[in-house]
């Protein structure tokens, strides 16, 4: 079963996308603790796409597709902003973050720790980021 939502690139849209994902996970009987983590990972990727890839320009859009497979949930993000492969990003260590007094840097680390697989590709001017979570 697959479900989709389209948001514009504004930070105000994050609440909407979290609610959409939370509702779908609930409908598919994903336990609360697990669902909270998955909602967080989606929020982190969206925030990153909105702020860094699309410069908070509400003319730009992000499409999120949720695909519930028997033992996997696949989250697919499509946008036309500046392409960025999470796998090629070296997350700073916690010590580096503390000493630099930076507020950013934790989001993608969370995504990497929560999801089982992250894929990035480009197709016909679209960046495609796919997050895969294996479920018991």
């Amino acid at each position, binding site marked *: 079963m697959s479900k989709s939502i389209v948001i514009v690139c504004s*930070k*105000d849209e994050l*609440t909407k996308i979290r609610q959409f994902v939370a509702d779908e996970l609930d409908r598919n009987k994903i336990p609360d603790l697990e669902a909270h983590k998955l909602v967080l990972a989606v929020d982190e990727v969206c925030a990153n796409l909105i702020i860094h890839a699309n410069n908070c320009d509400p003319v730009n859009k992000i499409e999120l597709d949720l695909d519930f497979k028997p033992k996997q949930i696949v989250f697919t993000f499509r946008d036309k902003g500046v392409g960025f492969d999470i796998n090629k990003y070296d997350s700073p260590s916690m010590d580096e973050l*503390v000493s630099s*007094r930076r507020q*950013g840097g934790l989001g993608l*680390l*969370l995504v990497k*720790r929560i999801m089982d697989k992250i894929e990035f590709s480009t197709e016909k001017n679209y960046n495609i980021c796919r997050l895969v979570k294996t479920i018991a």
Partner: protein
Amino acid sequence: MVNIEKEKNEDVHFIRVEGDVDAGSSIHLDNAFKEVLEVGESRIAVDLTRLVYISSAGLGVFVSYLDEFELKKIKLVLFGIQETVRQVFDILGLEKLIAIAENEEEAIKKLNE
């Protein structure tokens, strides 16, 4: 949406956070810390009992002040974290960097240590 209240009680400055702290609303948490620093408080307890959700933007606010707090000998304790939110702290290992208490009473005890 986030709602942040500040109050002072027995030399402890409380920051009470309610709702969702995400990339859009983390600025309010940051402002609360900035104000506390300007006043020159030395003991801060952050009440997260009514915090429903926090993303990296909010967690980054806590992390970004740790160095300054240590330098200025400011004590910080977070308390009342719900289980769903607590697991996010655990994923990042934040309990090794930030003092965390179960409830307000324990938080005050930790600040008095």
